[in-house]
């Protein structure tokens, strides 16, 4: 109803008592260079228009003028908080298209590192979200835990964010016993920490009052905008690429897809908190099942995909990330399309924020878990 009202007033002169608040591109709550053009009536938002594009780096175009192997490092840099998942999408695409058989050990290590990356990404979101809500201390607790993941991943990949760890047909390096031990230790360490977060933050009455019934997003709205990931699962739809379009060794692992039907900020919050616990479960199982063996399949030196269209999707930390490649048979793709979850999730904001108050709209914005380079790519 509110949407219709706003649409009908679009293009006409704004009412004299409204004003435009330009939130960003430099603002503490946008965590990057996102700009929101808010037409406000007092503290109420009549229309909140996101203006992305401030950190556009033409990743798609870059993909179209370099070989597949040269494009691989770029995938770590689209969403720098979930580099593993993005690299996974590209390697899975090329492996499927070129018919490369990946050794099982490599697949298990991919799952372990991907899930570690998911936890670290959710921890950043958790900290940053609490910062948006005015609580500073949980941020540093979360970063303390995340540091442990980064140390583990740095030891095997050599980098702390832009891992670039997966290769077509396998991995860049094998994992050693220290990593396996360290990851086991992390899993046992992290479970009580999640408990601490629940007691300190999730159960806190101030936070609950702040998030309950704020920013409702329905499943129908998610469908219209193509939202995915925790936003969609927070709206009651059990849609997870790991389940619906299984890839890697996820089918052999037992994990739940957390779903909360309320569709408010608290539901999205709880989906992510629950996902961290599930990721720990996945890591635990994958470590137990981790087979010995090679980590790299035999791959031609120059990768050329047969002409055609290829598509590969993964469940990244923020939702469904997919790459579509059109190949004309050369070693350089003809067209690369990146379908990033943050962009689709951001488009919700304009409709969902209508009639909200400014602090609630920022709570909504934070609950979408946007990474700005992922929007602009």
């Amino acid at each position, binding site marked *: 109803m509110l949407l219709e009202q706003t649409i009908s007033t679009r293009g006409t002169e704004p009412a004299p008592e409204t004003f435009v608040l330009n939130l960003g591109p430099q603002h503490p709550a946008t965590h990057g260079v996102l700009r929101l053009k808010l037409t406000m009536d007092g503290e109420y938002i009549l229309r909140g228009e996101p203006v992305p594009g401030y950190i556009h780096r033409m990743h798609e175009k870059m993909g179209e003028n370099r070989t597949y192997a040269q494009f691989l490092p770029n995938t770590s840099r689209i969403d720098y908080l979930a580099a593993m998942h993005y690299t996974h999408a590209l390697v899975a695409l090329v492996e499927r298209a070129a018919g490369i058989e990946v050794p099982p050990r490599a697949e298990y290590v991919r799952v372990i590192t991907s899930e570690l990356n998911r936890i670290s990404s959710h921890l950043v979101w958790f900290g940053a979200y609490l910062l948006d809500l005015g609580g500073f201390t949980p941020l540093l607790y979360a970063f303390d835990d995340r540091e442990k993941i980064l140390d583990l991943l740095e030891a095997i990949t050599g980098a702390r964010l832009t891992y670039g760890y997966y290769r077509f047909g396998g991995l860049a390096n094998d994992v050693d016993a220290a990593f396996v031990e360290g990851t086991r230790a992390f899993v046992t360490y992290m479970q009580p920490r999640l408990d601490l977060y629940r007691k300190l933050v999730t159960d*806190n009455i101030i936070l609950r009052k*702040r998030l309950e019934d704020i920013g409702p997003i329905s499943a129908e709205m998610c469908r219209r905008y193509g939202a995915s990931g925790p936003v969609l699962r927070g709206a009651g739809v059990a849609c997870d690429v790991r389940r619906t379009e299984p890839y890697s060794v996820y089918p052999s692992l037992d994990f739940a897809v957390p779903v909360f039907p309320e569709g408010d900020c608290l539901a999205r919050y709880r989906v992510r908190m629950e996902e961290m616990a599930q990721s720990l479960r996945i890591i635990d199982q994958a470590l137990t099942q981790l087979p010995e063996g090679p980590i790299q399949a035999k791959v031609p030196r120059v990768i050329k995909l047969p002409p055609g269209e290829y598509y590969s999707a993964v469940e990244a930390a923020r939702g469904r990330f997919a790459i579509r490649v059109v190949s004309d048979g050369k070693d350089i793709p003809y067209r690369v399309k990146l379908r990033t979850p943050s962009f689709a999730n951001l488009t919700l904001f304009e409709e969902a924020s209508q009639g909200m108050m400014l602090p609630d709209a920022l709570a909504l914005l934070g609950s979408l878990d946007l990474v700005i380079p992922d929007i602009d790519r």
Partner: protein
Amino acid sequence: MNVPEPYRLLLYLVGTLAFVGLNAAYLVWVERKGAARFQRRPGPTEVGPAGLLQPIADALKLLSKQVLVPPEADRLLFRLAPLLVLMPALMCLATIPFSAALGARDLNLGLVMVFAFGSINVLAIMLGGWASRNKYSIISAARIVSQNVAYEIPMLLVVITLLMVTGTMNLREIVEQQAGGFWHWHILRLTANPLMPVTFLIFFICLLAETNRAPFDMAEAESELVAGAFTEYAGMSFGVFFMAEYANVLVGCSLATVLFFGGWQSPVGVGSGLLWFLLKLYLLIFLVVWVRWTFPRTQFYRLLNLSWTLLIPVSLGILLLTAGLLKVF
């Protein structure tokens, strides 16, 4: 102390100025160190031992910066606001008795004076926000006025409850009534009102809201309003706002010490003095810091709802209860 009148005034004026200035500077250090400990990091360490000279370094940095006035701003009000914001805290402290002998002014209406001056602080922040001609600042100015109007009421209701028990507005006399052990302090004076700890809790919540401390820091709310009313302030004019926040916390906690925790009275009845006052004061300030670094911020409208739907009815109830009990016994 027996000092002739004009000198006594001067002495206490200088003393209060120094006390507020020193405390405002070093409470920043306490807050930074405290926050760091809650977050398991060391906090300031580089300037002086344990970072003790950090406030001085900060002050020097702020003082050496240019005070910028935005071209659109109301120049007079913009400059007036920082001056106005620190003054009430100084005036309030003049009435606080630090010990039996130490106190700038022994006023019969001390409590009234504290609240009268305490309200000017709000005006100053509002003026600053309004004069900045910044959208964030104006939102913040509107917020701070409604917040303070809402919280002044339960705070005064609580204080009236206490006044009925004490029968005086003279802060020195209020402290003297609480002599002889911690069970005589007003917070535990359950005979007058069995809900006295709740009364203190309401007072404390109002104190946080009146001084714009987290979780009620709506005026600043850095993730929503950038820096709220202080967005356009640079250099020392910002520094003064910052100091005023701590000066107000100091006044608020002093008042809580006097009203509820027996001022300079020792908890065991013997050895009362200034040290006890300071100990209680800083413990309360630590509590304020502790609360800030534990909780997220509330929403603005919930903050108002909390006051109008919970604190005001409850404090009214306590008021009636106390009145009834006093009448009966």
